[in-house]
């Protein structure tokens, strides 16, 4: 399989060896050998995944086998009914939106959706939305608010789509309006960054009461490659830029931008979709429960406050530099 990343290969090869041995070997000696190999694999996994570089996390966040929004929809909710279109221009398959139940609770689910193969990515543009995608998302979030339904958004996009039509139809305006309008929705909003949180295109569905990140997801103002091509004048310096940008889940928790980091199965969410989804479902349950009793006005005020305090600066008027 070409889908394995370089740093995953040693583990993968060892696991393959174990599988082969298990299939053929019998007897006590083989069992001992198997046990030893499994211990080795475990140690190797722990070593590799405890010491991932930021850029390796970027690679995991973009892993072609990683669970996407609709995989979480399938595992976390039931009764999913997708709804389409922005009512002005068209439907954008880069964003999926619809109604579902989380346990017994009806929720509106919005997510950026990447494609599994070339054909699907032609349609979904790798999860990079056009303005009509953001407008569909807002339309349905406002519908949800009118019917007192909490909103769950799943972020997974390299960024808003940089296309001619996107510019003509007001990509910037669509994002800006979402930022302002999400700030005043009167229902709880929980966002989970499940893969790539690519800049304004991610934020446009992520103004929320609670923002969580999966352990190997990233969230950044610019892609490491984009940053590298500007500040290092070399797009191949992505690993350096990834380090400088502080874009991992742990970084964002430290910077107090996200409220929690959700652990992934060892090796990453792509190793076990169901287990990753179970963690997400549990977190959604817990956080929606915590938000469910908050009065509307307080909810909106708190959400504003959440973003109002973001920023790091000194005020020279108070303490001259």
């Amino acid at each position: 399989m070409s889908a394995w990343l370089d740093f995953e290969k040693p583990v993968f090869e060892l696991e393959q060896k174990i599988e082969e041995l298990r299939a053929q070997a019998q007897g006590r000696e083989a069992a001992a050998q198997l046990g030893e190999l499994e211990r080795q694999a475990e140690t190797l996994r722990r070593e590799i995944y405890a010491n991932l570089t930021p850029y390796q996390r970027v690679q995991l966040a973009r892993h072609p086998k990683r669970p996407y929004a609709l995989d979480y929809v399938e595992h976390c909710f039931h009764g999913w009914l997708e709804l389409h279109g922005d009512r002005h221009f068209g439907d954008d398959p880069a964003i999926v939106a619809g109604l579902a139940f989380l346990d017994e609770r009806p929720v509106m689910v919005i997510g950026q959706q990447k494609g599994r193969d070339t054909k699907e990515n032609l349609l979904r543009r790798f999860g990079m939305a056009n303005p009509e995608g953001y407008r569909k998302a807002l339309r349905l979030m406002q519908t949800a608010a009118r019917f007192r339904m909490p909103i769950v958004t799943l972020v997974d996009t390299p960024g808003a789509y940089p296309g001619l039509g996107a510019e003509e139809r007001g990509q910037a305006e669509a994002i800006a309006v979402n930022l302002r309008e999400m700030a005043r929705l009167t229902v709880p909003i929980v966002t989970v960054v499940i893969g790539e949180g690519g800049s304004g295109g991610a934020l446009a569905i992520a103004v929320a009461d609670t923002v969580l990140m999966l352990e190997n997801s990233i969230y950044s103002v610019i892609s490491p490659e984009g940053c590298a091509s500007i500040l290092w004048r070399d797009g191949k310096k992505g690993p350096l830029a990834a380090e400088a940008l502080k874009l991992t889940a742990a970084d964002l928790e430290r910077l107090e931008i996200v409220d929690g980091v959700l652990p992934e199965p060892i090796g990453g969410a792509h190793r076990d979709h169901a287990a990753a989804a179970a963690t997400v479902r549990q977190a959604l349950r817990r956080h929606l429960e915590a938000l469910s009793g908050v009065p509307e006005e307080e909810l909106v005020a708190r959400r504003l406050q959440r973003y109002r305090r973001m920023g790091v600066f000194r005020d020279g008027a108070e303490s001259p530099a």
Partner: protein
Amino acid sequence: MSWLKRERAGIKGTKTPGVEVPEGLWTKCDGCGEALFQKVLEEHLWTCPHCGHHFRVPARTYLGLLVDEGSFSERDAGLQAGDPLGFRDARMRYPDRLKAAQQETGLKDAAVSGVATIGGKPVAITIMDFFFMGGSMGSVVGELVARSIERAIDERRALVLVSATGGARMQEGILSLMQMAKTSALLARLQDQRLPFLSILTDPSTAGVLASYASLGDVILAEPGSLVGFAGARVIRQTIGEDLPPGFQRAEFVLEKGFVDRIVPRQRMRDEVSQLLEFFWRSTRGFARDGDGSPHAFHPHPPAAGGGVQAGPGSR
């Protein structure tokens, strides 16, 4: 103004801003190639008398063109960026880059904030400065805009934001991105308060700033020819694999597509802003906190505006 010469000559940051440039220095127009004397340019508010090209100007220069003379009082001038990421790129640390930009521009960061009057109407205003790290928005610019919005609400002023920016500031990473949410969320409050917000787009007004407050004005005015767009032209060209149509992402193109209200030449900007504020002033009886109880009532004699440097609006 040393910046013009510096820009033309490609000299980096050797002159102190504000130092008088001897008369007789000339600049070649980017629009038509004509050689223009500094003095002539200044007389034309840094636009070309031949082709109308609008030169980029520093925030304080723009301020002088826009607000009533002597009415400006600066606010939050002490805000300075931190270095939350400990950012270092190929060439230098972020704090060093900041220091260089501060020395070059005489500003603490990429915007200037304060209160003023325009056409006698009280405004809270933030003007971005493209010459400070490309007018990029980090925590300080976000905070300046946020405080202007809050000041507009607290003091019943109109909000005027002038953009001149390449977008969010990479060196502050995710914190820069969050300034988009912070400012846009506060604009929801401003809307609830029925206070007018005029967004003025100058060259360039792009990326994260355009995708937040700059696109949210009740009225959006753009200078002729200014670059107004979300994604960079190079990235778009790479993505779609085609050349872009002529005039793409210029103010006139964006007007045609429906995302700005008017193209306003610099010479007319103060007048048009004054005129717009007059409409809102009258309809709200002087940006009143609660209208006057009758939202559709006509007031032939609205109260006079404050007018003074720090005077609050006379709305009550």
